[in-house]
Structures are given as C-alpha cells and as structure tokens.
C-alpha cells in the first residue's frame, strides 16, 4: 500500500508543478488580454476597469493563489473572449478531443501490435525490412500534412467522409464515421511507435529461458508465441499507451485545426491568438493533468497486471 500512497503524493506534486508552469508562463506574455478583448475601439479607462475586474493588476503570486483556490472549488474562472465560464466551454468540447484521442490510441494499438508482431517474426527477412520501413514511414509524415491529404483525398475526391461534426450523443455511428479520418491522421505516427516497441519487446522475450523451456516441452512455435511470448510482451505494452497520451493530445491540437473539430485544441489555439489568458491557462493545465493522471493510472494498472510486483 505504501507504494500506492507514495505514487499519489508524487502525482499531486507533479500536478502542482504543472499548474505553476502553465500559470507563470502566461504572466510574462506580451499583449494585454483586456485590450484584445475590448478591441481597438475601447478607451483607456474601459480597459483599466476590465483589468481590475480580472485582477490583472495584482501581483502574480496573489493571482495564482486565487486561481488555484477557485480551481479546487471547481470554478475554473471565466474566459475573457467568450465571457462564459471556462468550465462550460471545456465541458462542451472535451468530448470531441477525448473521443478523438481514445479513437486514435485504439487504432494505434489495434494496428501497431500485430504490425509489431509481424515485424518481430520476420525480423531479418526481406518482408521484415519492408514492414519496418512502412512502420517508420508512418512516424516520418507530419500529422497535419497527412490530415490535409486525407481531408482532400477522402473528403473531396471520394466524398467519403462528411466534415460536419456530429456529437456522440446525437448520432453515435456518424460520430465515429466523422472522427475516423482525423483519428487515423493522428494514429498513423503512433502506430509505428507501438509497432517498434512491440517488436523490441518480443525480440527480448524470445531470448528468455522460459521460451526454451516451452520449446523443450514440445510446444509448437505458434503456441509458444500466443501463450507465452505475447502475454509477457503485453504487460510492458500498457506503458506504451501511457506514453502515447501526451503525443496524442499534442497531435490532437493540430489535427483538430485541420479538420475543424470543435475540441479543446481549437479552443486553445483560439485562446492563444486572442490572448484569452485564463482560458489558455486552464486548458494547458487540464491537458497536462490528464497526461499525468493517465500515466499514473497506467503505472498502477501495470503493477496490478504483473504478478511479479506486489503493491
């Protein structure tokens, strides 16, 4: 149990650091949020009223204190640009980013693992070479470029995928159909990451003694792969999924921009350009916290699955 508590304390400290980084970074940002809100027409005294209203004139530490106090109370503050509670804005749009992220990770794992196994099995053969080049190519293509090509090839030429976002609640099937393209654009580079990891792990497991014992028991190669090697290989694969989350969320920001999906990625970019500091701070902390929490959960899951390590 001590391991569990230690892990939680580490996590909270990391989250605390995350909030400090994302808060302080935006304190020294040029450009004045009040001005960009009220726009070029506003008079100076109007801007000052808004600045005091938003406590922009108080020293950073006090602002941070209030900010964290409110977050813990559940009030994430109000977006300057949309003058609406940030919790609402994120609430409306988080569904898009999460379903996109989960969908992308599922694709990456569903294709990555078999690809990794094939890579490992045909490691030094001609076929193996083509496979590994193919999976590396996935990593090499910039996500947004891939997105654009998908958009045009499947969006226009084949008129395959509609671009109008439909939420899961309204119509789950077309929700998935619409998210397929962006999810694939996001997943392609992750597939190669998963495949490479899978291949390395399998190659490592193949050398292990228990595989030789299995052979000596008279098990056929395929059975050994399925019952012994893959199971042992799957345990560390879970940590890969943890690693993917940061990359997928980062990629989602760009892919949402290309496919014009109303996720928190587009909201963030919108916030950065319009200097909507409260909104941007909350979103960045939110994304970073999601990454930290998921990695924490993966760690715990990893311990539960692997009997060798007791909590």
């Amino acid at each position: 149990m001590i391991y569990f508590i230690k892990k939680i304390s580490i996590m909270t400290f990391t989250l605390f650091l995350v909030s400090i980084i994302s808060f302080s970074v935006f304190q020294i940002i040029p450009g004045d949020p009040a001005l960009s809100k009220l726009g070029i027409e506003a008079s100076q005294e109007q801007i000052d009223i808004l600045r005091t209203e938003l406590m922009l004139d108080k020293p950073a530490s006090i602002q941070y204190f209030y900010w964290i106090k409110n977050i813990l109370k559940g009030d994430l503050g109000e977006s300057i640009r949309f003058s609406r509670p940030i919790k609402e804005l994120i609430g409306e749009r988080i569904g898009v980013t999460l379903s996109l992220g989960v969908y992308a990770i599922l694709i990456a794992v569903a294709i990555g693992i078999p690809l990794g196994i094939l890579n490992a099995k045909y490691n030094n053969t001609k076929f193996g070479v083509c496979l590994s080049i193919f999976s590396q190519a996935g990593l090499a293509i910039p996500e947004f470029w891939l997105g654009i090509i998908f958009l045009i090839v499947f969006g226009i030429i084949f008129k395959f995928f509609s671009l109008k976002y439909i939420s899961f609640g309204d119509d789950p099937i077309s929700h998935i159909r619409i998210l397929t393209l962006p999810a694939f654009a996001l997943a392609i580079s992750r597939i190669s990451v998963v495949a490479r990891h899978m291949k390395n792990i399998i190659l490592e497991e193949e050398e292990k003694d228990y595989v030789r014992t299995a052979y000596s028991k008279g098990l056929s190669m395929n059975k050994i792969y399925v019952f012994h090697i893959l199971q042992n290989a799957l345990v560390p694969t879970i940590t890969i999924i943890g690693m993917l989350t940061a990359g997928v969320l980062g990629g989602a920001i760009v892919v949402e921009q290309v496919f014009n999906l109303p996720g928190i990625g587009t909201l963030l970019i919108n916030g950065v350009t319009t200097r909507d500091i409260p909104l941007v701070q909350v979103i960045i902390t939110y994304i970073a916290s999601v990454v930290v929490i998921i990695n924490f959960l993966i760690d715990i899951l990893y311990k539960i699955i692997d009997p060798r390590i007791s909590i």
Partner: protein
Amino acid sequence: MTIEIKNLNIYFNEKTKLQAVNNLSFNVKKGEIMGLVGESGCGKSLTSLAIMRLLRKNASFSGDINFLGENLLNLSAKEMTSLRGREISMIFQEPLTALNPLHRVGKQIAETLKIHTSLSKKERKEKTLELMNEVNLKDLEDTYKKFPHELSGGQRQRIVIAIAIACEPQLIIADEPTTALDVSTQTQIIDLLKKLNNKKDHSLLFISHDLDLVGDLCHRIAIMYAGHIVEIIEKLKDAKHPYTKCLLDAIPSPLHKGKDLYSIPGRVPTLSERKSGCPFAPRCPMAKEKCHEILPELLEKKDGHLVRCLYIYR
C-alpha cells in the same frame, strides 16, 4: 542404447564459419546416468541443444544423433516438436528464468501433459500433484496455485524436474541443473535425480563443470575440451588423459594438504584460436612435438575406457 551420437559437428556462421563441436561421438545406455564434463565454452551445452534441436538460427550441424531408431538431425520440425517433452526433455540451469513468470507453476506442469496426453483437465491436475509429490514438494495444493517468483530456487528447480519427467521420457538432459543453487539444495536435487533414475528406467545426460559432483552421480563420465571428447571413464580415479588428471589435481581436497593448488597454465582457446593437432597440446605438460600435428583418435583402451591421446596406453 537410448541414444547414440556419431561425429556430431556444430558450426557458428557469424562473419566466418567457426567450428564449436568437432565430430563428437558418445552414447548413453538405457537407465544410465551419463556425465558430460568440461570447462565453460567447451561445447557441452551446445551438444545438449543440438540433441533437442534448439540451436540458434545461425548455427549449423552435421553427423547423426540416433534416438529410438531415427536420426534426430533429419527429423522435420513437426516430428521433433512431438518428440520434445514426450521422449526427450530438458532441465535448465537458471530455475528463476526457466519458468514463465505469468503462469502458475501447476499449470506449467499440466501444460506438458496437455500437449502429449489425452488426460482430462481433472486427471491432468491429479497427475501434476502426483509429479509434484514425486519431486518432494510440500503442501501441493497450495504450491500448485503459486507463481514462480513466490517459490525458492530449490522449489522452482523441482517444478522444472517435474515438467521434465511428466511424460516419462526415455532421455532427460540436465544442463548444469544445480549450478545456480546453494550447496544444501544442490545435494537434495542430486539425490532426487538419482532416486528418479533408479525408480524409472529413463536415462539421464548430466552436463556440468563440477567434476566432484559428476564423480558421485554418474555411471560413466565423458570429459570434453575445446569441442572434443578427450576421455570417457567410469571411475574418475582411473583417469589417464593428462587434461583429466590436471582437472583432478586442481580440485582442493584434504589429500593435497600443504601443497599449493595446481592450476593449468594458459587458458581455453576460443573458437577461432583452435588449431590442428591435439586440442590440449598447447597446455599439456606431457605434450610432445607430434601432439601438435596429429589429432589423436578416441580409442577404446580397456573395457569402456576411451582416451584421445597419443602417448597414453602406448
């Protein structure tokens, strides 16, 4: 004759082709415990892997290993798979890593029965408990459910042995089964192997680098050096070959009290350094000039005592 190996050669083809085992010939009689002894790197483990056809892809071999009337080297992968575990089985050196960490030990024993026998699930469990009992494991039901990391080294090796004897194979190969264990467990495992060999009529090929251990356990002992068998004897004390004698001198024992311990000059040549002539010639105290040119034959001098040396029994 359970198994007979004739002119077995094993090569490694990394950059160039290297010969690791050089036309090895020996046999193991029914119910006999045959020792295969030599310093590390002499090719003894390779031989065991060759018999099981578990050599790495970059190794090639020639010669024949006759077992149950067939040459194992010519069998197809499928035929070999059905043989392994049923007629030949193996015990490994590292009990810690020899078992799959994610499966319960009981299940790993039952797996062998599942492959080779048509016993039902319940019957397999009973047979497994029976086997665990035979290898002197305690509170069987509980141990059955345990994972490998929850058992001690000795217990784990007993599980491996249980796996090996599950289908009453003709031949069991034990590749340094006790090296990784502490001395007390070592003697228990050796006694267990002796007991099992007497009770059942399987033959045991015992591979080790510990001369003392092999001396007590085995009916016959083959001493290997740099890919060749240099001597096959029944009792260590009547060893004739200079290498065997040097090995015996190097064992600290009360007889040599007061004398400093003897150690063989030089070191074991690597694969690429092996030259023609008697392999032991460069380090042999009695080496003559001819030893460096001719590779002596392994000749049978006296009933069952074979020696590969030009000057012994002249």
